[in-house]
Every structure is written in C-alpha cells, then in structure tokens.
C-alpha cells in the first residue's frame, strides 16, 4: 500500500452531536434519579426494589445506560484515534470495545427486567 496520509472520511458530526445529546440525557436522568433517591422513605432493599418496579423507571434507566454506552464508545474511539496508530490494532481494539459495550447494554436490560 502507498504511504499516503488519508483524510476525508466525511463523518464525525453525527458522533459529535450524539455525544452532546447523550450527555444531556445522562444529566437529566441523574438529576431525577437523585431526587427519587432523596425522596425515598428509607434507603433499603425494599424501597430500591419498589423504585425499579415501575416500567417507566426501567425504561428511563435503560435509556440512560444506552446513552452512557454510546457516549463511552465515542470517547474511547477518540482516545484510540490519538494513541493507537496501526490500523489493524486500532480496528481490533474498536471491535473489542463495541462488543464489550453491546454485551453491557444487553446485560443491563436483562438485570433491569429480571426482578
């Protein structure tokens, strides 16, 4: 392959925007989650279970975790782009991170609806 510096992948805006949107989603969720925690009569297993019993809470939490994982993917890829130069190693590392985050997402959904 020729040694040439190639740029012009024509993406980046979507990810940059998604990083901001997911950050807002996380901030809003954490704000309401903090309120929900503070207004609990007692912080024990029973109230924790009751809090996550409603479908709304589960959905909101899943949304938060998906936003977290997407946000993490964009950030981690940015780090790889700066510090891992060989294309093969970078692609491998990216695939590992995607699979790990996907597994986390599926697992968190399973945990949320398991009880």
């Amino acid at each position, binding site marked *: 392959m020729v040694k040439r*510096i190639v*740029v*012009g*992948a*024509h*993406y*980046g*805006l*979507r*990810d*940059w*925007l998604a990083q901001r949107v997911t950050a807002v989603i996380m901030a809003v969720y954490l704000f309401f989650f903090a309120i929900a925690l503070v207004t609990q009569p007692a912080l024990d297993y029973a109230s924790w279970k009751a809090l996550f019993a409603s479908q709304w809470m589960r959905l909101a939490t899943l949304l938060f975790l998906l936003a977290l994982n997407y946000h993490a993917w964009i950030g981690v890829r*940015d780090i790889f*782009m*700066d*510090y891992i130069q060989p294309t093969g190693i970078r692609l491998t590392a990216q695939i590992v991170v995607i699979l790990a985050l996907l597994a986390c997402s599926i697992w968190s959904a399973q945990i949320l609806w398991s009880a």
Partner: protein
Amino acid sequence: MRFTIYRYDPDRDEKPYMQDYDVPLEPTDKMLLDALVRVKTHDDTLAFRRSCREGVCGSDAININGKNGLACVTKVADLKEPVVLRPLPGLPIIRDLIVDMTQFFAQYHSVKPYLINDEPPPETERLQSPEDRAELEGLYECILCACCSTSCPSFWWNPDKFVGPAGLLQAYRFIADSRDQATSERLDNLEDPYRLFRCHSIMNCVDVCPKSLNPTRAIGKIKDLMVKRMV
C-alpha cells in the same frame, strides 16, 4: 537575569540539552525578545527567529516558562526566574528555538485561506455591509504564529491530519465572509473525524493566543453550521 534555554544543533549535538545563562540586562531591555537579543550578544551561537519585534509578524513564538507566547510582547518584568525557554512543542526542531513550521502551514493551506468567488470582480471593491464586516472581527487578526496549534494536544498527536486551531480559525474566517461563495465546499472539506473533530474544546488555544483570539469559538461556529446543514 537567569535563563535556561533549549539548545540543539543537529549538525553538532547528539541530543538536545538545556543551557543556563546569567546575563545582565540593560534598562532598555523591556521585553523578552530584547533579553534574548542581549543573550545573543554574549553567545552568538544561540538561534531564534524574530522580525517585526512588535507582535505583528509572529516569528518569535516560543515556549516561555511552559506557556507558548511571543517573546516580543512578553514583559521581562512579569517572568519568573530562571526563565525557561523552549521551542514550540510538537514541531520538528531545526536548531535551538527554531522549529520547522512546514506541517503547520500545510494545514493552513488545506483550508483554502483565500476568497472564493466565481462572479466577475466589480470595477471597484466587493462591498460589505458594516454588519457583515463585523462578522470577521476576531478572525482576520490572526498572525499565524502557531502558538495555539502547538499548544493543542490534538495537534501534537495528529499534526498531519488535524487542521489545528489556527487553520480552523482561518477556515471560519472565510466561511464567515459574506463575499465568499464556497461555504458548502468548505464545510465538506472539514467534515472529517480528524480534520475538525479532533478538537475537544479544551481551549489551550484560547489560553495562549497572543492576539487574544478565540479559535474554540470559531470551531464551535463551524460545528453549529454543520448541524444546521444536517438537521
């Protein structure tokens, strides 16, 4: 006044070293550039760039006590001793405080820093309204000293792919110009994970700019325009 200055002559030195100087200054040596010229009268092997000596040409950008700046507009009285002087970080060293700015200017050229307008030029100038002209404030003043780009970690890691704050400020300078007709092409040229989106708004560029310009704000406006174009 005490100085610790980065020395490296690739023809003679195996590796760079820091050299200490203790040079008495004259009362007229008000700026760091005056002091550097004074040091050079004691040791004429010391190499650095300078030209206008009044913050207009951008030649004498160096790393002063850990922060990039222009020697000619940095007051000696404000500096902590020993004054540690290094070349701008991240660029190849030619000798002592002189760096090779090829990559920096390659990025500058890549944004087509000139007016693109296909209409035949009018008999006089292309007029702008005062409001349109006001859009260029804080953009056209850049002197391309490279203080900002060489203080940017994203530019250190990817100087061949990331345009850098100086180049992006100039890219926006022409996007913002009411007489320019190539906004869409300019945005296409920058829509890239490396060329524009290596910027993570850490604002080192704003911190060091000797002309008090704000590349981060210009980069934000480029991103805003891209969002406006997309959604």
